Structure formats: C-alpha cells, structure tokens
C-alpha cells in the first residue's frame, strides 16, 4: 500500500493521491503506408484508435493484447517519442505539451521507459555505471555525484557496484543488462516507468527475479507502472488493473482479478482460454477462436472482433460497440452484449 507520508514528501505531486497521474483521452495514431515510386500515401495502419484511460498514482496498469494491437505505439505516444494525430494527455493535472501545461522535456524526465531488447538500449562502449549516470549528467548533475548515485542504484537493483560498475554490456547476461536498464530509468528519479515487454526476453528463472525486483523498487521509490506484456500470467501477477487491446482499440479494462476471473469481452475470454493449461490432464480440446488477428490497415467494420467472435450478430458488423465512459464503472467492456439497448440477442438486461 502507498504510504501517505511518502506521497507528501514528493514535491512534484501536485494534485494529491486522488488525482490520476496520467489521463489519456481519445488518443489516436494512424501510420501512413506509402506505395508506388511517388511514395503517395495509399493507406493507414490504424495502430491506436480513440484510446482513453487513466493511470492512478501508485498503481500498475497492465496492457495485454496480441502482436500488432498497438501496445508499443501507446507506450511511445505516452512518452511523446511519436506525436499523436489526436487526443489529449494530462500528467498529474497538467496538459502535456500545451501552454500552461507540462513540457515534453519535463514529461520525459518524469516518465521513463524500459524496453524488451536490453542489449541495444545500452551503449556498448560505455561502462554500465556511466550509462546509468549519463541521463543525470545531461540534466546537470555533477559527474562525480552522478556516478556515485549510479553505483548506489546498482546495489538497489541487486548488482555489486565493485563487481559490475566498470563492466561493458557484452560482459553481462540478459537479466543483468535488464537490471542496468532499470537502474538507468531510476537514475532520472521518475514518477512513472513504462515497461514494454521488459522481462519477455529473459529466461523463466531470471524473469521471476526481475519481477520481484520491480515490485520491490515500486514500493521503495513510490513508482507508478505501465506494464506491457503478452504474457498473461505475468500481467496478472504484477498489475492492479488490466487493459486489453485488439486492433488498436481497448476492448476491456478493469481490476486484474475481475478481468481474469470474470472477463466480459469475448476476445478477452478467448485470449485467456488460449493459454496452455500447465496440467497435462486439462489439455485444450478446441481452440477458443479460429484464424489470425486481421490486418490493422483495413480493420473490420463495427466491432473489430466480429470476424472471429463466436457471438457475432449483424449489429456487430454494422455498429461499433462503446467501451462506456470512464468513472461509470471500474470494469468495462466494448461489446454489444454489455449494452442492454444494442439489439444484440444476448445483451444483458437493463
């Protein structure tokens, strides 16, 4: 649980614990596809479409969904590594990149990111303690002080600075490199860390170590996480709330345990039922859905899942179901069966 005293200590906390750390409304990103010798835009990948959600202070929001559904694009938009086509983003009450709000540079200090590919995000020619100190030095911390802090952070992520501080990335295992990346993110004293498949490339035995570390760091540094992964087991363990994406849209969002035990969207149910059983006597006899996720260039009309959904009816192809407004309910699903007025024959009663 978050301690109130820690919160009060953080000078940067402006709105108090009740104000969400991050609010995203109607975020959209369509990537142009160019073709022909003139490179004319012939189509768009609808990577992120009208996505709205909040991240509360001190929580971990998990994002799941299959390859290409837009998880990393959301992450890059949150960091403003790419610019959205539309939508607004509010960080602790301040609109990002707007007059009177918070600047993108300031946002990028308060929000850090850790990626899957631990090797390529570290400078191969720099001892890892210098990599960790690099950001703070760039922002004006004296060199000696920054390196001292880097060595302290090495201890915090479970690496002995005397042994590891002077090493180069190629002298480290995947798990150790990922610990360095986490230390490097922490060096900026962020309030939020976006972890995009941060443990996915690790061996199972090392993955569990890094997950425990992330939980411990979150408590001691009073952090908020956005945790992206395709591993549904890992997301359940680490997340307070979970957001499920399909073809650029949010199909379901809610408290982690509710999603895993009482999923409402047919896609979420299919995704959960697709997990191998871990018990040879409970083998899956039939796949929950057939086919592959469709192409995000021309996503299906109406509900984007209707081409694979076992409950699809004509209304599903003609009208897009709504996720409902935030604040109405903690657990929401964008499916016509959740809307008494949709005309779907299996819709819940009003």
């Amino acid at each position, binding site marked *: 649980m978050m301690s109130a005293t820690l919160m009060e200590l953080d000078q940067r906390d402006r709105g108090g614990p009740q104000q969400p750390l991050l609010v995203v409304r109607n975020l959209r990103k369509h990537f142009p596809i160019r073709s022909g010798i003139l490179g004319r835009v012939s189509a768009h990948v609808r990577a992120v479409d009208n996505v709205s959600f909040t991240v509360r202070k001190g929580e971990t929001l998990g994002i799941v969904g*299959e*390859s290409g559904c837009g998880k990393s694009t959301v992450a890059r938009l949150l960091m403003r590594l790419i610019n959205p086509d539309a939508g607004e983003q509010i960080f602790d009450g301040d609109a990002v990149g707007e007059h009177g709000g918070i600047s993108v540079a300031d946002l990028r200090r308060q929000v850090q990111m850790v990626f899957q590919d631990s090797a390529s995000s570290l400078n191969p020619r720099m001892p890892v303690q210098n990599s960790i100190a690099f950001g703070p030095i760039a922002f004006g911390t004296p060199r000696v002080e920054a390196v001292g802090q880097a060595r302290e952070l090495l201890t915090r992520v479970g690496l002995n600075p005397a042994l590891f501080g002077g090493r180069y990335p190629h002298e480290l*295992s*995947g*798990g*150790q490199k990922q610990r360095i990346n986490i230390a490097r993110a922490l060096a900026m004293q962020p309030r939020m860390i976006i972890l995009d498949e941060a443990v996915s490339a690790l*061996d*199972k*035995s*090392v*993955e*569990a*170590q890094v*997950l*425990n570390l992330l*939980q411990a760091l979150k408590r001691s540094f009073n952090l908020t996480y956005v945790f992206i992964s*395709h*591993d*549904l*087991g*890992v997301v*359940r*363990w*680490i997340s307070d709330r979970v957001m499920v994406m399909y073809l650029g849209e949010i199909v379901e969002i809610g408290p*982690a345990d509710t999603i895993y035990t009482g999923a409402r969207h047919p896609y979420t149910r*299919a*995704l959960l039922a*697709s*997990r*191998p*059983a*871990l*018990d*040879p*006597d409970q*083998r*899956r*006899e*039939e*796949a*929950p*859905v*057939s*086919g*592959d*996720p469709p192409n995000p260039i021309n996503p299906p009309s109406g509900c984007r899942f209707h081409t694979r959904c076992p409950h699809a009816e004509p209304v599903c192809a003609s009208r897009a179901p709504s996720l409902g407004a935030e604040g109405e309910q903690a657990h929401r699903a964008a499916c016509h069966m959740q809307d008494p007025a949709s005309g779907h024959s299996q819709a819940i009663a009003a």
Partner: protein
Amino acid sequence: MTEPLAEVSNLSVDFVTRESSVRAVNDVNFTMLPGEVMCMLGESGSGKSVTMRALMRLLPPKRSVISGGIRIAGQDVQAMDATALRRMRGSTVSMIFQEPMTAFDPVVRVGDQIAEVVSVHRGVSHAAGRQRALDLFELVRIPSAQRRLDAYPHELSGGLRQRAMIALALSCEPKLLLADEPTTALDATVQIQVLILLRRLQQEMGMSVIFVTHDLGVAAEIADRVAVMYAGRVVETGPVRDLMRRPLHPYTAGLLASTVHDQPRDQDLETIPGTPPDMRHLPPGCAFAPRCPRAGTDCITTVPPPVTPAPGRIVRCLRVEAELV
C-alpha cells in the same frame, strides 16, 4: 518391445574456433519410440537447437565436432553419405524451424515450393505435387487453400506461414518430426490452434515428434515425455505428468516454481538465484550447483551420473535417491 525409432547415445557437440572450444551438448542420451511426443525444455543456450541439428546432421562440419551415436530408423546418421542423408531428410525425418521465413524461398509461390519437394522425393509430376500440396494445405486447415497455394511467403500471416511450414514438413510423411519452437513467435490465440493441429496430425499420422520449447505450458499441452536440458546436459527426463507433478531435479523444481501463472499477487515469486552458466566456463561438477539450494561440496566436484529413481525417469542429481519409495 517396440523397436525405437531414434536412439541417441552419449551425444556431445563441441564448437571449435581458434580461440575457444565450447561443449554445447554434453553426453545426451534418449530414445524415441514410434508415435511418441517428447518435449525438450530448457533455457536459452542450453543446447536444444544444437541437439536437433545434430540429429539432422545440419551442423557446420568444419566448426563442430560430434561424438556419440545417432541411429534413426536403424541407420547410423553419422555414417551416412550424401545420398543417404538426403533420403533421410526427405522421408524419415523433417524439421520445423522457429522462424518459418527461413524455410521458404521468398520469391517462389508456397504451393510450387511444396510441389517441388514432393515431386523430387516421390518422383511424381509437378501437377501431382501441386495436388499433394493442396491436400496438405487442407490437412493443416489453411482457409481458401487453393488460393493460398499461389501466395508468396510474405503474403501469408504469421499463423498461416507456420501452417504452410508444417505442411511442407509433413509433405513426405516423416516418421520423426523435429519441431524447434514452432509456436513461440505466434500470438496466443494462434499458438493454441497450431498446438492442437500438431497434436491431431501427430495422432492421425502416428509420427514421433521432438518438440523444443522453453514454455512449460506448451509441454503440458503436447508432450508424452519431457527432457529438461541445462548447460548442454539432459538433467531430467520422465513422463510429462510425473515430471510436472513431482519434479526431481532441483532445476526442474525451480523452473516450475518460478513460472508465473496464478501465484498470489502480494507475495514474491519463487526464484532460482543467480544466472545460467557461461558455456565457455562450466563448473567442473554439476553445472547447476552454483544456483542450487540443495548443493553440497560433492556437487561442486562430481558430475552427477544418471540415476533411475522411478520407472521411466532419469535424473542427474547427487541429491536424488536411486530408488524412490
């Protein structure tokens, strides 16, 4: 007793370069019965793919030294000449790779590629090969199979490409299929489809399958038997149920305990401390000893011999009793 289809005895593979020599596979033994599915489980670099490649004699001959015996369908794979090798690869054994793009020529339509393989191996016409390719596409449940035969590899989605790859591997009705992480790159909803498909085809065709994975759940879905590899050795083998209910090697036990499924969220996960060993500098005794909660001084110096604590189970651990009560 049924004749084993494949017998691997004391297989070791060393990679030699000017600077160093790495033993990637170390004294591996197993037999495969006809119709059996065995999963090879283990962390990155533990020697799973190298073992598979050794079975197919696909390792670079100049840089690898293979010792020990490999017999498939009664024949000594090490002693095969080029003709015998080609015959074995086409008819007795075939392999599915993790990245299906590597198996297909990007500029030839997939249907023609399968037809080509079939016509070469069976000595039939290209048209007959195309017909067989169509049958195979239907067998692996590729929708609109006729149309898909004319697709280029890049025009197929990941799931369809993996199915086409399976069709190619099955085209000559192998007795032994080597599947190296065939579903790891697939999405969850597609992976389960391909697993169920492979299981069905395996049963219908009665073939043996060695299925490489690092996912315990996948092993539980498909395996009859599991072989767990660590640092080039098979440290434990056994029937899938026994092994998953009661792992005997401390590494297998640690792997099961640290796999995240439905553990309580307010507690730390169980972990295996430390990191997998550097294959260039393996410890002299049990390679798992530096990370093992049960290790004693004997483990640091002695390579554990295989023991058979229960029927069908073999474990390389000094702490495992030879006879379980």
